[in-house]
């Protein structure tokens, strides 16, 4: 989650309020100082890396119960010792995460642009897992689980904490999630509390429940708290704090682009890919011990950090706030950045006008200015008393403060001041997969896709309103097979602007997309396709990502080991898309609903969760093969190469 250095006392929301404008204004000044330097950067090379979030689970085999072990924070301290002692060229780097049962690991050095790197990803993930496992007790397991199925249920943590009512947890006021499960670094509890206070009420997450034959209808829960009772919707699983979202794991990717223009291009082109990858990686069907009618964590996190007031959510007339805001600060992007993408920016973009003016006056281009001005409608949520007045030429803390609490599907990251790091974009939607093999497959697939986009100059742009529709669809139960997604009818360009003539119609070259767009027919470039078509292709419709990637691979030099691994990764993605393999979400549903103790009432009991997680662990360790999730792998990812110089030559 970044931004963990601090100095002074953390401030509460009412103490931050007087500084909101100061932080915003100086965040922009910091950005502008940085930007002037940045435009002179020489061309950067491709570097990229993955981030996987893990949970520490504790298995009580005697009583068939699994809990989340709150030792993640201590463990990440041990994991960070090498880095803190100044060692470089490490195998891995570790960060503390929101929940004290989590750790986040990244490769110690970024990966580079040569093909051999694709054979190191999985080996490095395995090393990371091992590194954590060595620090665990015999009954503990590290797992890359997107959502813990009994999160927020009675006694779900170890040690356990009794919750009498909202007052038991002064930070979150949750009825389910003990404050002790929030990492103790001041950023996390203060973020939690300040979001709640800015919002003016407790977080309310309502997720539709999967209605089985014995599920009460309407499904209404009784809570010993009037605020919860009011906020909980019938037929929904109710959750009431940030931990239900930020306490989930995900798989993220960061790319360094060669310059600011390539970064913009990748940001734009990957945005329409987000919903597709989200549906393919779906791994989160169970919340608070109930089977949900969604497969993906996204809307849960979005609601879990929604700091908008009633006015901003449009539920009360504007009085104290400036504007109505459509989305949570955790959600899909609202504008493209490249000039040629502008025409597809068709959704309302709330902006902070003063910020926009400052940026435009400083010579920042219109779309980037709007993008930042949009991020700047959000207030800072954390602030430390000794980190308010800063040297705006040397640091970018205030910029990062707001930037890093805009949790969107893609993130556009300027180089940090005084660093060798270049312009980066972050791909943030994938769910964590159970095994390193699957995680590596998703990572390698997306990286290859970026190379394909840049090599063939493909164009995936579509109106952002269509991307948002896709984001909604991607979260549904079995979206990967059941839903259709808006997608470009023709992704081919001849290096021409987005709305060139030939790219819109394969059958009739005379149809001019520019005309369509100016006539308001933005969607003329898209049609609804299945994920199978998008990934595996369909004659006369779309070649499919897989064959585009294969085509690309035939034009570059790939070693036998790397190619063998890539082949199996592509095979996994291809079969997830075609339905030959299940997503983790569908497999978990299937496991639970066919469990002998399951009562067709949507409830995932402790013992069912235990059996499910034991099986997940066995699959991850390779003790049990699960042909529903993936086939037997033959490739040999290279352990030794993970941190050796030969791998990076």
């Amino acid at each position, binding site marked *: 989650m970044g931004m963990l250095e601090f100095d002074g006392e953390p401030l509460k929301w009412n103490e931050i309020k007087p500084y909101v404008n100061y932080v915003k204004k100086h965040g922009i000044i910091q950005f502008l100082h940085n930007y002037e330097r940045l435009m002179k950067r020489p061309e950067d090379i491709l570097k990229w890396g993955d981030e996987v979030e893990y949970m520490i689970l504790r298995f009580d085999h005697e009583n068939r119960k699994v809990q989340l072990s709150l030792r993640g924070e201590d463990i990440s301290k041990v994991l960070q010792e090498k880095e803190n002692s100044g060692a470089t060229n490490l195998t891995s780097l570790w960060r503390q995460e929101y929940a004290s049962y989590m750790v986040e690991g990244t490769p110690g050095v970024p990966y580079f642009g040569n093909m051999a790197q694709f054979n190191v990803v999985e080996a490095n993930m395995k090393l990371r897992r091992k590194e954590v496992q060595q620090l665990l007790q015999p009954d503990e397991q590290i797992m890359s689980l997107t959502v813990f199925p009994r999160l927020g249920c009675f006694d779900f943590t170890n040690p356990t904490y009794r919750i009498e009512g909202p007052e038991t947890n002064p930070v979150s006021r949750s009825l389910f999630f003990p404050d002790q499960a929030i990492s103790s670094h001041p950023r996390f509890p203060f973020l939690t509390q300040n979001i709640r206070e800015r919002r003016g009420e407790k977080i309310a997450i309502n997720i539709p429940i999967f209605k089985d034959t014995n599920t009460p209808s309407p499904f209404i829960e009784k809570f010993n708290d009037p605020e919860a009772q009011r906020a909980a919707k019938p037929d929904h699983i109710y959750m009431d704090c940030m931990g239900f979202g930020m306490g989930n794991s995900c798989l993220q990717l960061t790319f360094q682009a060669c310059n600011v223009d390539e970064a913009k291009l990748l940001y734009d082109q990957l945005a329409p890919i987000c919903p597709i990858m989200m549906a393919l990686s779906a791994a989160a069907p169970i919340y608070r011990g109930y089977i949900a009618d969604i497969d993906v964590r996204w809307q849960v996190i979005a609601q879990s950090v929604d700091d908008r007031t009633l006015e901003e959510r449009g539920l009360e007339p504007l009085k104290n706030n400036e504007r109505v805001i459509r989305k949570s600060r955790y959600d899909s992007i609202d504008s493209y950045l490249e000039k040629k993408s502008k025409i597809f920016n068709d959704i309302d973009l709330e902006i902070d006008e003063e910020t926009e003016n400052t940026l435009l006056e400083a010579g920042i281009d219109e779309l980037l200015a709007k993008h930042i001005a949009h991020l700047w409608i959000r207030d800072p949520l954390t602030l430390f008393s000794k980190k308010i007045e800063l040297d705006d030429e040397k640091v970018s803390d205030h910029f990062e403060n707001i930037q890093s609490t805009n949790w969107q599907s893609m993130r556009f990251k300027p180089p940090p001041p005084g660093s060798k790091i270049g312009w980066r974009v972050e791909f943030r939607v994938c769910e964590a997969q159970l095994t390193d093999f699957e995680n590596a497959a998703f990572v390698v697939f997306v990286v290859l896709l970026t190379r394909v986009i840049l090599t063939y100059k493909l164009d995936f742009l579509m109106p952002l309103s269509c991307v948002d529709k896709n984001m909604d669809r991607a979260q549904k139960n079995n979206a990967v097979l059941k839903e259709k997604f808006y997608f470009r009818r023709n992704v081919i360009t001849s290096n021409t602007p987005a709305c060139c003539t030939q790219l819109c119609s394969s059958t009739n070259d005379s149809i001019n997309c520019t005309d369509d767009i100016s006539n308001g027919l933005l969607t003329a470039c898209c049609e609804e396709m299945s994920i199978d078509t998008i990934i595996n*292709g369909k004659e006369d419709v779309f070649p499919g990502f897989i064959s585009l990637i*294969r085509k690309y691979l035939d034009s*570059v030099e790939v070693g036998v080991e790397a190619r063998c691994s890539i082949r199996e990764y592509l095979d996994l993605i291809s079969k997830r898309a075609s339905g030959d393999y299940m997503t983790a979400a569908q497999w978990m549903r299937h496991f639970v609903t066919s469990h002998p103790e399951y009562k067709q009432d949507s409830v995932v009991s402790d013992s069912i969760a235990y059996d499910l997680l034991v099986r997940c662990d066995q699959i991850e360790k390779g003790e049990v093969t699960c042909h529903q999730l993936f086939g037997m792998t033959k490739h040999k990812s290279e352990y030794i190469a993970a941190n050796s110089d030969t791998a990076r030559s």
Partner: protein
Amino acid sequence: MSLDAERAELARIMVGHCNTFSIHSGNIINWNMLKKHRFHTSLTSSDELMDALHSAIQSWIRGITIDPVNMPEPQNAINISNRELETPIDPDQREKLKLSVKLFLCDWRPNIIRRAVDKVIQNLDVQRIDSLIVSFPVMPPSTNTILENSNISPVAADLNKIKPIWKEMQSVVDSGHVSKIGVSDFDQAGLELLHNWARIKPSINQISLNNCCAVPTDLIQYSREEKVELLTHSDPPEILSARNFQSFMSESTQDIDATNWTPSFIARYSVLVRNRGIVHSKGYITSAERQSLTSNGEDYGFF
């Protein structure tokens, strides 16, 4: 006669007169994608080459100028290049790019190596090729697979044919036109034989994708020890058969003497942007000769 028909007729006569024909596809990286209906998983490099040939020759015919006063002279050798698809290599950017060539030999004449290298260098306007992989003419089907457990290596049997060609490979390195040289589809025994004999060792061995997850351990072991890079390809055993080339010639130029054409080499190049994993350009240069010289096509004056 329409202009198009006139052009086609002129092309037919010009081709009819020539005995060597060389076709450069230009950069097919963007163009090839446009034909999405042909874009399916089973598309091989043979199909890709055939598409590239057709596109290049059509572009050539379209570009023929009809000027009754100033008719083009019939020539013995025709070199065409798809000018609509040129992606020149900027000399200032050359160090950031990696130019790799795979040379498919259609017969065993050693002098083809030099001719092919010259052609690539000329067409791409560069000084040097970074790596050159040679693929030897197709062998009988039973010896095509490196996985076969026969006692006599197919390459071993052919080492005497390979030697003169490899000498030419060494000579293009000596002359500074090529940096690294390699082979494709060699098994361990063959690789060892060549390696022991060669003055300049092969530093690459390209293995068919069909076998990349089952490369024999002796080959892996040996390659590691001798620092031979094992790369992958997905090319069919024969990328362009004489028959396919002949039907291409007769179809695209109406050449009546097409059956006497045989391809001598196909050079496939790809230009990679180092450190970024992006393909700058890719293309094919195909060179063919007409074998029978008894009839030298039609009398030009007839036109």
